[in-house]
């Protein structure tokens, strides 16, 4: 395969996401300009200009009409996908670490960092209610007690009835959307959870953690099902919608990268069989750790964004599509 390198960011990529149909890739980085690209040929459709700090998270709604970005400039912005115009800007007390549309696209959630004396918060807004977005007063606000570890990654779970959060101490929790209470929690990892991605049907989710592992959990019960072990911190993991495969990306921590060569840095994306937890392949390419990975919704291509500032779009060779794991 010949990967397409997307060079639209000046700094390291923080998150990439496909839209539901997979024709667009949304990428955000530690520079202030999120990008949107056509996945087929890597053509850049546009940039969303307006943030003043690193953009930590990006999400797109079901019908690709709205984009949501959360930034370290203490705002979460809602954009029109077609024109790149900022529709709303929600001010927060601290940096927005993760954000997401619910499946319907009617509600959004965002989580903030615990810094400068402010607690880590989960906020939920109803997009249909313009006053909520303008005033910045959410329909539901959950402030975590200061003793709790901060949220490092969050997604919508179940049938939009809870928010699934990954924490700095390796915990995964469910928070009820209506009451704001913690429903369940599980100490899945020993170190920070960097990324959470659901499976296509939403029955499972995969976590990527600094403790060198990625784990598969049951969405409802939070029961740990599978563990994928590597030798480096894992920054992102994604479940294939087509095969029983899992792709895991990471590598030496960014702060230590200058002290290691690319050879031993293990900056390749690694493919595991989802059930047997066994690694069967890897794809090289990035010059730094992979920060975000995502399978195309059809499972025939995947993209990765790295600390090197590039997004690489990979269309699988026939060899991968024909590959059957022997057991």
């Amino acid at each position, binding site marked *: 395969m010949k990967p397409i390198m997307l060079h639209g960011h000046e700094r390291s990529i923080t998150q990439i996401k496909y839209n539901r149909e997979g*024709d667009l890739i949304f990428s955000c980085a530690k520079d202030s300009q999120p990008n949107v690209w056509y996945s087929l040929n890597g053509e850049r459709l546009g940039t969303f200009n307006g943030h003043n700090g690193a953009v930590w998270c990006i999400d797109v709604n079901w019908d690709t009409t709205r984009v949501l970005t959360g930034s370290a400039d203490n705002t979460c912005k809602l954009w029109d996908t077609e024109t790149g115009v900022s529709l709303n800007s929600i001010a927060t007390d601290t940096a927005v670490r993760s954000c997401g549309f619910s499946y319907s696209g009617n509600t959004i959630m965002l989580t903030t960092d615990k810094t400068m004396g402010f607690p880590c918060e989960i906020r939920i807004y109803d997009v249909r209610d313009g006053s909520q977005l303008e005033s910045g007063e959410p329909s539901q606000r959950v402030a975590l007690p200061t003793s709790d570890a901060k949220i490092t990654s969050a997604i919508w779970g179940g049938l939009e009835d809870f928010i699934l959060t990954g924490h700095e101490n390796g915990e995964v929790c469910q928070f009820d959307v209506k009451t704001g209470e913690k429903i369940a929690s599980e100490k899945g990892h020993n170190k920070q959870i960097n990324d959470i991605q659901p499976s296509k049907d939403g029955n499972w989710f995969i976590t990527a953690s600094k403790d060198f592992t990625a784990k598969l959990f049951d969405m409802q019960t939070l029961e740990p099902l599978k563990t994928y072990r590597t030798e480096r911190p894992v920054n992102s993991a994604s479940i294939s919608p087509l095969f029983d495969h899992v792709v895991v990306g990471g590598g030496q921590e960014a702060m230590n990268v200058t002290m290691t060569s690319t050879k031993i840095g293990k900056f390749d994306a690694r493919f595991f069989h989802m059930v047997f937890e066994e690694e069967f392949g890897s794809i090289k390419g990035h010059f730094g750790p992979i920060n975000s990975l995502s399978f195309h919704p059809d499972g025939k291509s995947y993209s990765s964004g790295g600390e090197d500032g590039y997004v690489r779009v990979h269309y699988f060779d026939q060899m991968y599509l024909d590959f059957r794991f022997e057991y």
Partner: protein
Amino acid sequence: MPSEDMSKGKSWAEQVDEGDEGYVLTGVLPPNTEDYDEKKGLKKITEYKYNDEGKIVKTVKTYRIETIKVSKSIAHRKTWKKFGAAERDPPGPNPANTIISEEIFMQFVNTSEKQADEDDDPLGKLKNQKIVQCRICKGDHWTTKCPYKDTLAPLQEKLIEDQRKPEPPSTGAAAAASKTAGGKYVPPSLRDGGSKRQGESMSTQRKDEAATIRVTNLSEDTRESDLQELFRPFGPISRIYLAKDKVTGQSKGFAFINFHRREDAARAIQGVSGFGYDHLILNVEWAKPSGQQ
């Protein structure tokens, strides 16, 4: 000379010459051209610009245009206008942002029996060939892996020492024998009394390659008939192999020519090496025997 081609188009060397003279003097950039071949679905864009040294640079980009059926919503999104930093980008990928990187392959790792089979095969061959011989028990394994290493080796050393003591003046063969047993390295040619099968494998190889010459730095338009014309005067030729590109059928720039007689080949090297042929200076030398044995 590939004279037929001259009428159709100029060779690249002439194009470069003309291009330099024509445009540097006038100082005007030629217009950018776009060429679309509908049958093959290939679009060729030629651009001219000045580089940092003030020289004209010509860039030719070739795109493959594919038509793919997609759902209405995707097709609609494809018609969206570019915005933000990409607002002024022309249609199609901007090469500043979108780079096609080098071909890479997914590396499949271990797991299955396939790998085990591959490992086994060469080992199996080695066993049959019996290249490895233990110096202690003469079995087909490395000396260090010998199961009798601890028991036999000290025994042998003792024997050798015993041999030495009664007859100290004996040197030559006996000394050599004692050395091999003692564990010193002896090159294969000197083992078993040496001179038994010295370099026998080399001579057979040489015969086939003896009258073969390699011609390099050929131009792209060279044909086999051109080579025949060029080398016929030196003597009868048994075979001409011209390396060609599979797709385009153009020459890859080198050829092998087998002569019947070695003397002819030698004269051909003398005669053609350094000969100017279609703007290029030919390099002719003896073909090296291929690496495999």
